[in-house]
């Protein structure tokens, strides 16, 4: 066998698997989205139908809030961990990154243990204020869950980016009389912008499409993945759920593609 045909032969198994179990099904999904009573207009329902639009807006707002808060939290903690050396630092980093491999369902359970009916927060608030704070099963619980999910990922990216910063630039700014705050604002944060975009896009896309956490917390939280799930399984509304999931897939893919073209690094959302 010649080298050239051997290379093609190497590619063959992957091509078969990807075509049969990814490309063809995705094409089927796109077609199914237009097979409803409204035909192609089914794709516009996500924008025209008030209920779907409200869910979409809800999901985008939740994902945006998750992204912003995660970035702030991860930047403060990541910068601190990368810039200082102290005993216990390695343990702290391990603690902050070990939830990386938790599936969404487990994250949901963590939130129930924190803010659920038998949760820690309710228990503490009951002792202090005489009232039980329970919010795990609402959109706030979901928000907390997405934070839990994205903080470890983003911290790792920020720490890697802080490590690559040129400390000389900061020293130069300081020697020219810039205040610590001005150094952060004008030197450090702009240099971290690509990391913010890359990790922020992952956090956003993951929060848009994650299903496991919402599923564990409650089935009546109004976000896009739950809507798709209920349309498909409970209402057996295949065309709508197909159109909605194509829309959701396009949004997450677009955000990640935009972030990648801006920051130049490969990004991936999982979970």
């Amino acid at each position, binding site marked *: *066998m010649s*080298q050239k045909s*051997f*290379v093609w032969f*190497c590619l063959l*198994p992957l091509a078969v*698997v990807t075509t049969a*179990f*990814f490309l063809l*099904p*995705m094409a*089927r*999904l796109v077609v199914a989205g237009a097979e409803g009573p409204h035909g192609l207009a089914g794709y516009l329902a996500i924008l025209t139908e008030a209920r779907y639009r409200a869910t979409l807006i809800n999901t985008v707002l939740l994902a945006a809030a998750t992204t912003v808060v995660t970035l702030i*939290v991860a930047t*403060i*903690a990541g*910068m*601190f*961990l990368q810039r*200082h050396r102290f005993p216990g630092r390695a343990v*702290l980093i391990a*603690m*902050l990154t*070990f*939830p*990386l*491999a938790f*599936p*969404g*369902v*487990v994250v949901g*359970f*963590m*939130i129930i*243990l*924190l803010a659920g009916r*038998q949760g*820690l927060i309710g228990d503490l608030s009951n002792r202090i204020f005489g009232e039980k704070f329970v919010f795990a099963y609402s959109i706030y619980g979901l928000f907390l869950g997405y934070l*839990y999910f994205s*903080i*470890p990922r983003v911290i790792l990216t920020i720490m890697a980016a802080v490590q690559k910063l040129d400390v000389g630039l900061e020293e130069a700014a300081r020697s020219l009389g810039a205040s*610590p705050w001005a150094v952060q604002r004008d030197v450090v944060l702009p240099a971290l912008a690509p990391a913010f975009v890359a990790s922020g896009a992952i956090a956003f*896309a993951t929060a*848009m*499409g*994650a*299903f*496991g956490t919402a*599923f*564990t917390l409650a089935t009546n939280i109004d976000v896009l993945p739950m809507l798709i799930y209920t349309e498909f399984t409970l209402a057996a509304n295949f065309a709508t*759920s*197909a159109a909605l*999931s*194509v829309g*959701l*897939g396009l949004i997450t893919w677009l955000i990640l593609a935009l972030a990648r073209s801006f920051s130049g690094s*490969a990004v*991936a*959302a*999982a979970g």
Partner: protein
Amino acid sequence: MRDRLIFTGQFIFTLLVAAFLVVPAGLSISAGVTVNYFRGIQSGVTLQWVAQVWELYAGTILLSFVIAFATLAVTLLAGVPAAYALHARGGRLARIVEEIITLPLAIPGLAIALALLLAYGSFGDFRRSWLFILVGHVIFTMPFMVRSVMAVFATVDIKTLDEGAASLGASPWRRFRDVIVPNALPGILAGALMVVTLSLGEFNLTWMLHTPLTKTLPIGLADSYASMRLEVASAYTLIFFVMIIPLLVAMQLLADRDHKR
């Protein structure tokens, strides 16, 4: 003085964030071995919940391992040669192929699962078997294997090695077996750990693809969260932690070793 204050503030903040992540996991571990969570750990320490989980859900744990290793086998057989081919061929086609196989990372698992259901849901025997879940896991984990192997090819000069072996008269297949694969081993190992970890924890796709007879561990977890007492759900989560943490540690050690080289 001021630096000291900033340091302390950041330190406390970071500690709080770590607590947010670790405390619930700790609660879950302690609840899994507590006789009665409501009364607290004073009620005694027990393994009865772990035993009960084993009785109820051993099948899901077993199936998860079967699927994880089958996923690993498929991603190895299809992914490693493909990574080599994509690297050797290069150019536009390789970039497009890489782009396509990476798409499942950008598209929510729910959408991929729906696509698989719509395309193959009517093939009853296939739909009912665990192979249906396997297919989803393969699509979802394949990019990790391919990219992790390609990352190694980008650092070792595989082309020179390959051409050297070719000039000595080695056939393409022998070169692949004796030159390419041994050199790609670190990437294969990293990819394999990632594939198994992701497959063991995969829920989004699996929830849509499973049947009552093909439940994996995360499906069982969701089931126990919804219908079992907190102690049982916690014990189950504990078992999941015990399974997943060695994999995470191995991944970290591998990354550290790569870093030092």
